[in-house]
């Protein structure tokens, strides 16, 4: 089945220790998104890629970076995680055509000690 895969599902890191979260998709979608979700709140968009074009949200901290080496993979790098960065991180994809829904991965729950 075509899907969005996130690894790992659970990640524990130490305060200030860089961490990378991974997302891959078999849907061949142009657009990939990264969201942060805290405590059953609405997902907050961090950034998205439209093909290779990176689009950062204005309020995304510099501590968060992303890479998309090819269509299938996208990475979220947190350079110096703080306690406030503990959250669920969701990856999603969509076709570029207006009105298409986003398909979400299962998420990675990040714990910062």
């Amino acid at each position: 089945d075509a899907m969005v895969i996130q690894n790992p599902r659970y990640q524990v890191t130490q305060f200030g220790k860089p961490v990378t979260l991974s997302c891959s998709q078999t849907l061949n979608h142009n657009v990939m998104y990264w969201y942060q979700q805290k405590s059953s709140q609405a997902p907050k968009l961090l950034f998205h890629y439209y093909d290779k074009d990176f689009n950062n949200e204005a309020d995304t901290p510099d501590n968060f970076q992303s890479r998309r080496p090819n269509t299938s993979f996208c990475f979220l790098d947190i350079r110096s995680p703080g306690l406030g960065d503990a959250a669920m991180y969701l990856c999603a994809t969509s076709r570029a055509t207006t009105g298409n829904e986003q398909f979400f991965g299962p998420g990675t729950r990040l714990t910062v000690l």
Partner: protein
Amino acid sequence: AQSVAQPEDQVNVAEGNPLTVKCTYSVSGNPYLFWYVQYPNRGLQFLLKYITGDNLVKGSYGFEAEFNKSQTSFHLKKPSALVSDSALYFCAVRAKPLYGGATNKLIFGTGTLLAVQP
């Protein structure tokens, strides 16, 4: 400004009864509206969307939603609730691009927790 409101933090309903989860929106132009469901420790699952056409949209798992332009609402409904429907439900609207072009960025509501009692 574009926004989505889900006025109820939680909705409680007995199994077998009809359920409604409310959503209102504020956008300029024609809205593209979506409903997603999230089970604990899982990602969001797409339920249904309204782009154009018939105001009553049917989606996954027996859910449907009615687009009402005059009331700027897009309420999610199901005729007979199941205990397994208990989850967090998000309404979303496509964000209108600032400079034109295609985008499927979403603006999410705050979510409504649906609790279905046996």
